[in-house]
């Protein structure tokens, strides 16, 4: 290109504000085309399949799901009556560990992985802009929260429909609701479960800005998750339990009451918003002031 052409390009380079979303699109495409992401989603899709097959085998002789009442994930006893309950069971089974672990991997790798590969410096001189890059990364992690939850739900619905009968269902409160309404509740529950992961996603992105090692950031995030889950089980610490991001996670079951019991659901969403605000701000403060030497 000659000097004249270069100058012309300079003049005609009018920038559309929409172009700024190119990074988000690139980030989403890159994340969801990665083998690692697909493997995580495959594992998540596998959980409802395992649960469904296990329940099917155990009840194939006509008996009910074994064990004392209340054992196993929520709703597991109802699956044989209605395959839709496999959605609730699968979400209850994956929410404490599988889902947040997958989020921890993606979130922990968000900034630290780029730093580790050295690609962070090229994104920043492109220039991606630090706040824009951080927001893009966080938005992508949240998109992954939603996709991961929906993968579990859709896989469970498919397996439930294949192995068990579908139909009207009974809520926890004992009232009957139609299958269509049950399906609506299942979608709502999936959205609430995805929203429950916002806090751990913010925590993971923050940890990711602290180090140049993607593996260290992932391990730290998952380690924090396990620690919080254990502490949440220790009765002597009940005074601080309400501040743990995982404390109200299983409140999504309240959506299956008639009428819906909103207290814990709202506490959960509020707590997630607080975590997102606190750790999002911390990540921003850290990342925008950081010397990028990797």
């Amino acid at each position, binding site marked *: 290109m000659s000097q004249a052409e*270069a100058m012309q390009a300079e003049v005609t380079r009018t920038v559309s504000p929409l172009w700024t979303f190119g990074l988000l699109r690139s980030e989403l495409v890159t994340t969801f085309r990665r083998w690692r992401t697909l493997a995580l989603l495959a594992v998540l899709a596998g959980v409802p399949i395992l649960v469904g097959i296990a329940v099917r085998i155990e009840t194939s002789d006509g008996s009910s799901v074994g064990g004392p009442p209340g054992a196993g994930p929520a709703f597991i006893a109802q699956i044989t009556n209605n395959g839709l309950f496999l959605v609730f069971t699968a979400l209850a089974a994956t929410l404490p560990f599988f889902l947040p672990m997958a989020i921890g991997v993606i979130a922990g790798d968000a900034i630290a992985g780029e730093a580790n590969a050295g690609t962070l410096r090229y994104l920043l001189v492109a220039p991606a802009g630090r706040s824009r890059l951080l927001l893009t990364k966080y938005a992508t992690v949240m998109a992954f929260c939603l996709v991961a939850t929906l993968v579990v739900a859709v896989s469970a619905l498919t397996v439930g429909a294949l192995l068990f009968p579908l139909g009207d269902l009974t809520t926890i409160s004992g009232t009957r609701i139609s299958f269509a309404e049950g399906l609506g509740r299942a979608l709502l529950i999936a959205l609430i479960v995805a929203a429950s992961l916002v806090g751990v996603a913010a925590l993971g992105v923050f940890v990711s800005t602290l180090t140049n090692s993607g593996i260290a950031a992932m391990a730290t995030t998952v380690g924090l998750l396990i620690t919080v889950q254990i502490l949440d089980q220790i009765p002597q610490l009940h005074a601080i339990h309400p501040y743990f991001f995982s404390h109200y996670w299983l409140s999504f079951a309240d959506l299956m009451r008639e009428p819906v019991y909103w207290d814990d659901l709202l506490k959960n969403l509020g707590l997630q918003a607080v975590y997102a605000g606190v750790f999002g701000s911390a990540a921003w403060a850290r990342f925008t002031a950081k010397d990028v030497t990797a």
Partner: protein
Amino acid sequence: MGEPSATEPDQEGAAHSGDGSVIATRALTKRFRGGQLAVDGLDLTVPAGSVFGFLGPNGSGKTTTIRMLMGLIEPTSGTARVLGQPMPRAARGVLPQVGALIEGPALYGFLSGRDNLVRYDSADPTADPRTRRARVAAALERVGLTAAAGKKARAYSLGMKQRLGLAAALLQPRRLLVLDEPTNGLDPQGMREIRQLIRELAADGTTVFLSSHLLDEIEQVCTHAAVMAQGRLITQGAVAELAAGRRGRLVVTTPDTGDAARVLKEQGAGDVVITEDRVTAEPPDRELADLNAALVTAGVRVRGFGVERASLEDAFVALTGEGFDVAG
């Protein structure tokens, strides 16, 4: 060489630097946590349109300087202006006009070469997505990677990665290219191609800021150079002047080295050194033909007589007082 006047209208039209410098730092200093002083009071001026060689042993602060210029590292004190704008504050406006290769290429191994470029281009909010495919293809073509564009980047050789890194710097028309060791990992043919590419870009009016440890590379392509050692700027200026600052050495090839050395000293030459069948010396300020005549008259069998031009390497060694070793 010199300041191509072709870039002047562009400079003023864009209302950037008034003094015609593309990079200007004032007392730029970086002290890392832990107290290590990486860059110490740097006053660097890169004229518009120059091919500027940035020289220094490993650990002399070159990369830290480049990172400060690109807004990756915050200076401890001092200022840096790139294209007339303060960095890192004006990064959003400045960096789209700057292509950079910093400390070697960094790629997404799981993406193809082409997709790597698409990703880097997407990160630039001023890059038009409608022309993205075409610009990526042009950049690949320019560095000779078109045939390997579909391969995963992890399968690339070091030289191919280097080329892809260069292609990323060439995705848009740039006013400044910052190239840190651009020929690293390339074979001699690849090095020649890259040097040719740099000359072409410079001819188009792009200012090229080139860090290298290969002195002959700097000498071949650069119009200006700066030398750093231990975080400080030792010298900067036009390459011809830097080398000219060192006078050439008189070289006499003869089997009678002892006699030759004696005669040269008598004739006023300084710093006479004998190596095998060569005698070298600082030439005195007089007609060299007379010196040769004196040698022959004294019965010295002169096989060769001449002045070796001082190379940038000589200048470099004289300036840094060391070879190209790692500074402790």
